[in-house]
């Protein structure tokens, strides 16, 4: 039976409300960033007024957002690469090798997901600023301080573990008979078969590292090393810049994650789907 006109109208209205809730703020940011008219707190523009790209220029060059974007890119790219490498190797061991204490290792990895960032931030600070013996240096105030703590991430380890478990044992045995060693089985047989999952893990990992706020705030005090989320936090309370410049900086901060998603979207969706239907 076809729904009545009233029902259809109500349904469309509901869609519009939902759309407004989700897209509204995003649209507001875009419009404000492109507007020359300085908005007042609480004001929301629906269309750009005095359209201009000057806000982006001010943010990028005058506010040196480019530097913080660069810092964020270095941390996110190196961090994601290391995170995926560590996760894939850990997942291979957990999924394909039987060893004493495997269950305990899984549990320890899992337990890292149960601690909120705020709880570990102080111990993490203590570890990061601790000086290494002999060389008498610490990684505090370096890129390494922001990268190393995010290299091991339980989510990506578990995601890849599940996918690697699904690779038939016979493939590994066939490769073993063909003369492959452990590394060759990992690199030539198992890893190519979990590519969709790798795509998903790269996207999630990149976004997770890009969005880190507390960690860089705790382990870095040199402003030159600040990442974009930390910088945005500071810009927000800076009364010398207009809200328009601030939202332009916010948009710039969002761009890399959106690009990352678009580049790996196909693999991401395949990864999500495969995870959903796997028994």
């Amino acid at each position, binding site marked *: 039976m076809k729904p009545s006109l009233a029902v259809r109208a109500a349904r469309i209205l509901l869609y519009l409300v939902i759309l407004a809730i989700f897209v509204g703020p995003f649209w507001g940011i875009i419009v404000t960033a492109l507007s020359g008219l300085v908005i007042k707190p609480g004001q929301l523009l629906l269309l750009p007024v005095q359209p201009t790209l000057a806000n982006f220029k001010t943010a990028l060059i005058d506010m040196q957002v480019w530097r913080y974007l660069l810092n964020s890119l270095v941390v996110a790219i190196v961090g994601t690469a290391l995170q995926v490498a560590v996760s894939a190797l850990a997942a291979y061991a957990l999924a394909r090798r039987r060893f004493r204490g495997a269950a305990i290792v899984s549990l320890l990895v899992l337990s890292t997901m149960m601690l909120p960032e705020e709880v570990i931030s102080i111990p993490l600070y203590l570890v990061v600023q601790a000086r290494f013996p002999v060389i008498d240096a610490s990684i505090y105030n370096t890129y390494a301080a922001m990268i190393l703590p995010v290299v091991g991430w339980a989510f990506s380890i578990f995601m890849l573990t599940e996918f690697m478990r699904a690779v038939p044992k016979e*493939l590994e045995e066939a490769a073993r*008979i*063909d003369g492959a060693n452990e590394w060759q089985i990992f690199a030539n047989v198992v890893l190519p078969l979990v590519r969709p999952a790798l795509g998903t893990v790269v996207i999630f990992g990149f976004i997770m590292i890009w969005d880190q706020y507390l960690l860089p705030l705790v382990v870095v005090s040199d402003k030159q090393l600040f990442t974009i989320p930390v910088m945005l936090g500071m810009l927000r309370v800076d009364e010398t810049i207009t809200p328009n410049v601030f939202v332009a900086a916010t948009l710039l901060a969002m761009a890399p994650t959106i690009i990352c998603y678009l580049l790996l979207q196909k693999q991401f969706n395949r990864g999500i789907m495969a995870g959903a239907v796997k028994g």
Partner: protein
Amino acid sequence: MGAVSLKGVSKSFGAVDVIRNVSVEIAEGEFCVLIGPSGSGKSTLLRIIAGLENVTDGEVRIGGRDVTELAAKERDIAMVFQSYALYPQMTVRENMSFALRLKHRPKDEIRRKTDEVAQMLGLEALLDRLPKELSGGQRQRVAMGRAIVRDPSVFLFDEPLSNLDAKLRTQVRGEIRDLHRRIGTTSVYVTHDQVEAMTMGQKIVVLRDGRVEQVGTPLDLYDRPDSVFVAGFIGSPAINMLPAMVGPEAKTLHTANSEIVLPLPEGYRLESGRNVLIGIRPEHLETVAAGASGSIVCAVDAVESTGSDTTVICDSPAGKMLVSSKQRSQARAGDRFALRPDSEKLLIFDKASESRIVRM
């Protein structure tokens, strides 16, 4: 090329003994079939030869070399898996050349060998395809190709035909046999299908509960099974087994309810009153006139015809019996007729030990 020798091989998974003291000699160039029901340990034994399972006890030798402690890749063997285990992300050519690439062989040698084997198996047109773009039979051939390219001293096959349909199975069976004839590499082939075992094996090893039940040529096993188990496992339709007792003066055999009395063939020294099992192959029964001496009166239960062979399932006083013949049968369910076994071909087993009583 290499002979395979298993000496006193045992394998336990925890408290479960899967292989118990198995000793088998497979000569160089021989095609040996390991057969047995599910759980008999045949696949485990193959995996032990492959080096995919360690032995708990015993020794494995390939080509005279003790390989018991060696890893799979050091044993110079190739294996065709039941699931084919083709690398899904690699093309047929990459699948076939994987082992050679791992060995860092020169590129032109890899190409030449892969092309040769592809031609031998009729895979030339498929070399650039992925496994998912192949039919079951083609995948099977690629799996064999991958094994052949390596030129190993032993081929191991783990139920390679069980995922194929009946027609293709017969065809590939022939192809494997031809291939063995051409290449002459020692082959160990695991199956639970006795037709495959009988048609392919030069030597058959029957396994039961992790033990070797009997080793022999296909016809050896068929004509002279050592035990009730082998007699029942080899042959299709299955052998008829009638519980009986040796009659007075040891000249007759009486079935349990004495309704069937068969003459005891010459050459058996059996004491009167001994409990035995009479094994009669379905093709060793002929129809005779009712009331003929040494005949068994039966009622037809069902008739199964494949066109070339007919099997009549009938009810006898000693239970269900199968009769097979090359002739078409007009019998219908309920028809009564008399059967007489070829007494020269009766197999007699001791009831207690279930082993065959040898005729003098």
